[in-house]
């Protein structure tokens, strides 16, 4: 048992190191966005495109999903399998809503000719926000796998360890989104 705990601890630490590498990837994308965001090349600017209400709804949905993810961790700690699955499903639903809203925003932009090919500003916008969205999609896939494993195996040490890492990942994406909301949407609307 002690060995398993030690192992899960090592896995969590390894995952933290991985998250640091992901922070660097996002860090570069943020830096690129800040350098290029004024380079609209005569195309639409952030003021023309962004709508604060949409971004705010997105933010609230994702923050709520972080909350349900936290409740999932608590349920897992108490050893309640069904409750854990229920909170995972709630997290999934909110994550999927977020992704749908984001894709809706993307398609609206593309429909009015503001695609990633239009200007350096839009290239960097789509890449930064899209990379975050891709991470969310990976998280959704992870939830599905986690639910299947919970159904099959219950809260074994291996599954619990995976849920811990998933929670780390999901909260990390939330923090990244806060930065996107601030630097892309709020600053873009100033």
């Amino acid at each position, binding site marked *: 048992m002690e*060995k398993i705990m030690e192992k899960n*601890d*090592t896995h969590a*630490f*390894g995952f933290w*190191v*991985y998250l*640091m*590498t*992901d922070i*660097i*990837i996002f860090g*570069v*994308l943020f830096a*690129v966005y800040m*350098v*290029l965001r004024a*380079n*609209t*090349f005569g195309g639409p600017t952030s003021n023309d495109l962004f709508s604060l209400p949409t971004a705010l709804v997105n933010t609230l949905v994702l923050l709520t999903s972080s909350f349900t993810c936290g409740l999932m961790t608590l349920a897992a700690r108490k050893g309640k399998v069904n409750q854990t699955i229920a909170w995972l499903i709630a997290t999934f639903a909110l994550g999927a809503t977020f992704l749908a809203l984001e894709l809706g925003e993307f398609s609206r932009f593309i429909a009015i000719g503001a695609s*990633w*090919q*239009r*200007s*350096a*500003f839009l*290239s*960097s916008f*789509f*890449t930064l926000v899209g990379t975050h969205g891709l991470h969310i999609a990976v998280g959704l*896939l992870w939830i599905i*796998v986690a639910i299947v*494993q919970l159904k099959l195996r219950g809260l*074994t040490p*291996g599954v619990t360890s*995976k849920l811990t890492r998933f929670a780390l990942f999901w909260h990390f994406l939330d923090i990244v989104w806060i930065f996107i909301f601030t630097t892309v949407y709020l600053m873009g609307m100033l």
Partner: protein
Amino acid sequence: MEHFFLGDLTWSDLPHQWFTIGGTGAIIVGGIIVAAVITYFKRWTWLWKEWLTSTDPKKIGIMYIVMASLMLFRGGLDAIMIWIQQAISAGNAPGYLGAAHGYLDASHFQQIFTAHGDIMVFFVTMGFFFGIMNLIVPLQIGARDLAFPFLNSLGFWLYVAGAVFINMFFVVGGEFAASGWLSLPPLSEIQFSPGTGVDYWVWSLQISGLGSLLGGINFIVTILKMRVKGMKLMMMPLFTWTSLCSMVLVVASFPVLTITTLLLWFDRFFGMHFFTSGFGGNPMLYVNLIWMWGHPEVYILVIPAFGIFSEIVATFSGKKIFGYVSMVCSAIAITLLSFLVWLHHFFTMGAGADVDAFFGIMTGIIAIPTAAQIFNWIATMFRGRIRFTTPMMYFMGFVSLFTFGGMAGVLLSIPGADFELHNSLFLVAHFHTMIVSAALFGIFAGITYWFPKVFGFTLNEKIGRRAFWLWIVGFFMSFVPLYILGFLGATRRLDHYAASTGWQPFFIIAATGVCIIAAAVITQAWQVIVSIRDRRQNTDTTGDPWDGHTLEWATASPVPFYNFAKTPVVDGRDAFWEMKKRGERPGILPPDGYDDITLSKNTGMAIYLSGFVFLAAFGLVWHIIWLALLGIFGAIACVIIRSFDEDTEYVLPAAEVERLEKLAWKK
């Protein structure tokens, strides 16, 4: 319809130039010979079960070194081709093989120097270091394995996939990137490099870079979490310390490479405008980003070699290393400073005098911790009982060359001087001196030093020393002319120059030098062959042929797959030396007997996963969308299947450990 199945592939992408036919032929003939030998000796099952699917870091380490050696021949061939071209292409002499000058046309010449740089950095030097770390770091910290054995196997197979991918252009496409080893835009954008060369470049770096990143995470966790009882950080052997520093650099800088080259590919594939010259793109952004990875990368290649040399100089001087604490501090200082100097690669960008001055000063400052290392090594040798073995020869060669090249580096760090020498052969000579002397000599020294530990017999000393002398003479002959040429005004990457420049004699001397280096490499191969032939005379029965200091020598040679029968307990630096002083000896049944050992099982999943990644990359290079999707979904499926597998370990019973230990020490 045809485009759906084949993407941009056409018949004309199959080999038809002499070099692609040659390359493809070499790959096919080599493959057939290897396959025939394996089939003849009926070794397929053995190869698959014992090696390819292994998660044992020692086997993965050996496979890394084999692959890196192959790539060293490949990258070395490029170097020879470059030098020969430069030696014969002065003035209006008629060309051969259809080239206007020399025997390579301009575009082909550019592809060769691009491939040479990338192969040597990513697939030779990094491959060798990951190999040596896999072999030695777990042993030095008294661990049985790395923290994540599966990720280790995956990292290796991604490295292999990347190495194969960088050679794929021989078979399909016929052109590699012709844009220099970092493929700077706007030259590397689709507008100016419309072929698939740059795409091959991007994806081979993506694949192998992912492997390096996984390796970096793995080693950091291993070193920080899996040390034996009692080994505090400041008791770790210096090679482990420098490996840790190097892996921290990998983890902090490789994401930058991954995302930067990916953005370049987005420009090319999706028509984005990050680094294009129109639509608001900013090419200088790429240059900044790529060197924010690129400069730490230099230290990723050099710092582990510092650790190797620290082990070697202490062992062969019969003393403890002088100034252990300052060695650690200076390694950490170099690690941190390496993130603050990237702009010295392009002082001429025009960032202004203040910015240039800052980066010039930071660059100069790096010389201080580096010099501290050198003085400590010399102080370690002072009044030591020095044994001039081959590793020690490489060390001496390293110190002289590294100091020589380092002073050229300090010269280049002054922005004013750099404006003159930027892009010249002086620069080329400088960084080759640094990388060859530190990284390559470090690798050679390390392999010679640890060879008996891994294989159970020492390498032939006489031939080893001959190879060393050929290396150092060849090196000076090929690079001193380049320093001079740089001062004479020769820029780098020239496939042709006017006869009136008077440069040709220098280029001819350099080309003669590279022949000596080639002889050195052949001598090294000969050394390995002779040593295998004479292995019975050179068997290492003690497990400690050099009177070593650190824990790896406390095991039998070759190291059993479980590393330590009984994990040692450590209470100071140079753990094994202290044990020997106390009269403790390995290989004796401990009073409380052996324990069961848990080890990780073999798995082929890393191979399948890397295979899918390879297919995805190939699909993306050639715009074959179904293949790319197949690769991506296949890779995801592999990850999910692996996540369901909780039965990844097995137990080696104590009785079996006892039997194996008796066998290992009986010799």
